[in-house]
């Protein structure tokens, strides 16, 4: 056997170390500048007068009411959108019917419509100047400038998240497993719970987390229909703006920091689940 000297392998499929370092550096600086720095600023501003002032700001009745409002809205909007999102994705991917493409476009509508327009549509539909709105207000069931309006605005804006996550996954998975279950005599609900749901659970989780993040953070549509009544129809994002406009910058940034922490918590939860179920995940999903 001839004597072969193995030299250090030279990577031929990658760039020179200098260029690599430069590219990574640019990426890191970009991330630091545009993601990390603004987030840190929020926390720094919140703690400008110390922990005590920040915690005191959170105990303001208006801040507490806004937090309660946002959590309530998310707790109602997310399950509703999850249920309808699953139903829509199930119908679109497991059945054939005419105008399916049109339905998918409709589901995407809230993504393409500006949130302000969404809010204004609600005002036009349910405001005092429409027949329906006039009747509802006369019967003491106001929609806009009250809780139902804020909920409707949030539902509209966050509608596509779950369905949009589910549809590609369910198309990819096809319907062979469901058909097999059907030939074995399983009922519709049985198929859904034992075949479909386990297959889509990761996509569903992503959809729900994204939906939740948006539901808590939505500003535009909610601002139009909220009426800005302090302690009554103010959500966290609208309250942040109000505090800021009232020179209560510690309160504004503390509330903003809480909102950011809720978002970070959502991401953390997602990463944790991914990490714990990495093998399962690899088998069913590629996020």
């Amino acid at each position: 056997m001839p004597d072969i000297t193995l030299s250090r392998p030279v990577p031929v499929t990658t760039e020179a170390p200098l260029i690599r370092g430069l590219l990574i550096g640019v990426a890191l600086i970009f991330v630091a500048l545009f993601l990390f720095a603004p987030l840190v600023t929020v926390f720094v501003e919140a703690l400008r007068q110390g922990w005590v002032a920040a915690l005191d700001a959170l105990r303001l009745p208006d801040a507490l009411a806004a937090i309660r409002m946002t959590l309530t809205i998310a707790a109602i909007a997310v399950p509703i959108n999850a249920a309808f999102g699953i139903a829509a994705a199930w119908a679109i991917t497991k059945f054939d019917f005419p105008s399916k493409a049109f339905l998918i476009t409709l589901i995407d509508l809230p993504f393409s419509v500006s949130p302000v327009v969404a809010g204004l549509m609600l005002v036009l539909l349910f405001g005092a100047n429409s027949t329906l709105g006039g009747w509802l207000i006369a019967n003491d069931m106001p929609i806009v400038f009250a809780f139902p309006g804020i909920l409707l605005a949030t539902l509209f804006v966050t509608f596509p998240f779950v369905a949009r996550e589910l549809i590609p996954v369910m198309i990819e998975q096809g319907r062979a497993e469901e058909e097999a279950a059907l030939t074995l005599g399983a009922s519709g609900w049985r198929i859904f719970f034992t075949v479909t749901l386990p297959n889509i659970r990761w996509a569903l989780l992503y959809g729900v987390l994204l939906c939740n993040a948006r539901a808590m953070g939505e500003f535009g549509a909610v601002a139009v229909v909220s009426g800005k009544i302090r302690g009554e129809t103010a959500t966290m994002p609208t309250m942040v703006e109000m505090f800021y406009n009232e020179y209560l910058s510690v309160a504004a940034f503390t509330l903003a920091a809480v909102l950011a922490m809720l978002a970070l918590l959502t991401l953390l939860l997602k990463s944790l689940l991914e990490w714990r179920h990495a093998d399962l995940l690899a088998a069913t999903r590629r996020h």
Partner: protein
Amino acid sequence: MYRSIRISGPRLAKSIFFRSLGERGNKIDAGHTRPWGHLITVAWPNADGSYHHALRTVLSAGHLHARLLAATGALGLTFAGTVPVAAQEGVEILNVSYDPTREFYREYNELFNAWWTAQGNAPVTIQQSHGGAGAQARAVIDGLEATVVTLALSADIDQIAERTGRIPADWQSRLPQNSAPYTSTIVFLVRQGNPRGIEDWDDLVAEGVQVITPNPKTSGGARWNFLAAWAYAERSGLDPAGFVGAMYRNVPVLDTGARGSTTTFTQRGIGDVLLAWENEAFLALAELGEDAFDIVVPSVSILAEPPVTLVDGNITSDAQRTAAEAYLQHLYSPEAQALALSHYYRAWDTSLAAPDDVARFPDLELVTIADFGGWAVVQPEYFGEGGIFDQIYEE
């Protein structure tokens, strides 16, 4: 007997419904919320503490409420005993207001409730909503159930009256002084030392000067700004449309409300001069430091009358009507007028005000809306669809 608790920093809450939670502090029922915190010991004034003296201390100090209790106590008006909980069920007032009144109404609501309960009434829950005056009027027209509106100019209230019929057409004669319990005017706020040397309206059309003012379509203050500039041009023999047009060409951002413009100028650092409500300019100085900005008083400005009125069509009960009417009428009381003065508004009754609060206002020549023919004429002609502002801004 009233008790006060400190909920955070200088913020206090008060109520007659009080519950001690021992170690964990104290809880009170303030109508729609039940905050908790530490009990405030009310410092009673000395024997010589006359009503005027006590009240003046109240108005010049941050701890409004605790001192106010002291003041009412000095008058012997403190309402002793406890009202049954059922009796205070539910009178609510929603005050839909414009941008710069946030701080004033936050304190006025406490002052009113203290006075109102001292008369033997159950406390009223007062909710506030603030935004650009035009946008707020729009919200009321679209169904925001305001009990009272306290907006920047009568044209906005006229709009509500005209489009919904929830306010009678003659609303402005229902309260004294054209229903304007406080007035203000338009001044300039410039950066410290006035680096651009802005002294009067004609400096605003100079090349390269950035002027910050909100959008007259949505903001009441902006309409007063517009008319004040117009009045200056007329008096100086300039072409008003050309002059105001040149001024708006120097505006880089049109915010929807006065407070938005103020934050654009003061906190985002955009622009050389802010056309501001006088009260907003003083507030910015007080909040953000006297060394950051200067107030410049132009040679001519306009008497801005922000009116208040009851939205009759939204009243649901007699109790609410009584409370809401009292709420508006009490704005004219010497105490409330002094409070308005301490919030940098020009008020009518200075009898209880601190001399400093009165002396602060510079004398300047003020034109009135009547000189333009009243808002009924001005609103469509200048700010209506295709009106003078539209024509100027399109150029």
